[in-house]
């Protein structure tokens, strides 16, 4: 079962590497923020599964923080874009 958890964590990180291409190449800021938002979700899942693999309870809080505050990044970016502060 531990091996399955580690495999899932590595697979999610591989998906993040695909999204990183869009972050680097996105023509507008919105493209990059969309890809970053998806990446942070994948990162939260990967951290949670790595916590279950390594049996470290304290990493769970990292996953919880990532999933509850990563969307604030998207919200703040969209406020900046709407009010033309960039």
């Amino acid at each position: 079962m531990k091996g399955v958890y580690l495999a899932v964590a590595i697979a999610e990180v591989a998906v993040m590497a695909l999204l990183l291409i869009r972050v680097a190449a996105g023509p507008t800021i919105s493209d990059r923020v969309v890809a970053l938002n998806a990446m942070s979700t994948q990162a939260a899942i990967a951290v949670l599964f790595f916590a279950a693999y390594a049996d470290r309870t304290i990493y769970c809080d990292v996953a919880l923080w990532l999933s509850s505050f990563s969307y604030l990044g998207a919200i703040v970016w969209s406020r900046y874009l709407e009010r033309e502060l960039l």
Partner: protein
Amino acid sequence: MTEIVVIVLAAVGWAFSLSGAVGILRMPDVYTRIQCSSKMITMGALPVLIALVVGEGAISVFGSRALLVAVLLLVVNPVASHALARAAYKTGVPMWPGAVADQVADRMRRRSGP
């Protein structure tokens, strides 16, 4: 038996995540990419988190955290997607040339017309 269920759920979720990532890479403009990313977060993340709940039990340390993360993603992700789409439209990010409908522009035209 539990391990088979965990593997199947994780594989389904990972397949959705991968197809969403390929969609974000391949789609032509930002609005279709936002659609891909929200599908990917909802359908890709939830089966994987449910796999952890099945594997560890709902009231264990990791299972309860996985349930909490799933609820947070369900609540928070549509808000972020809508805000991003609205900001992209307001800053004038161009649509794909093959797009056939722009209902916001239609409504603006109707309001300012005769």
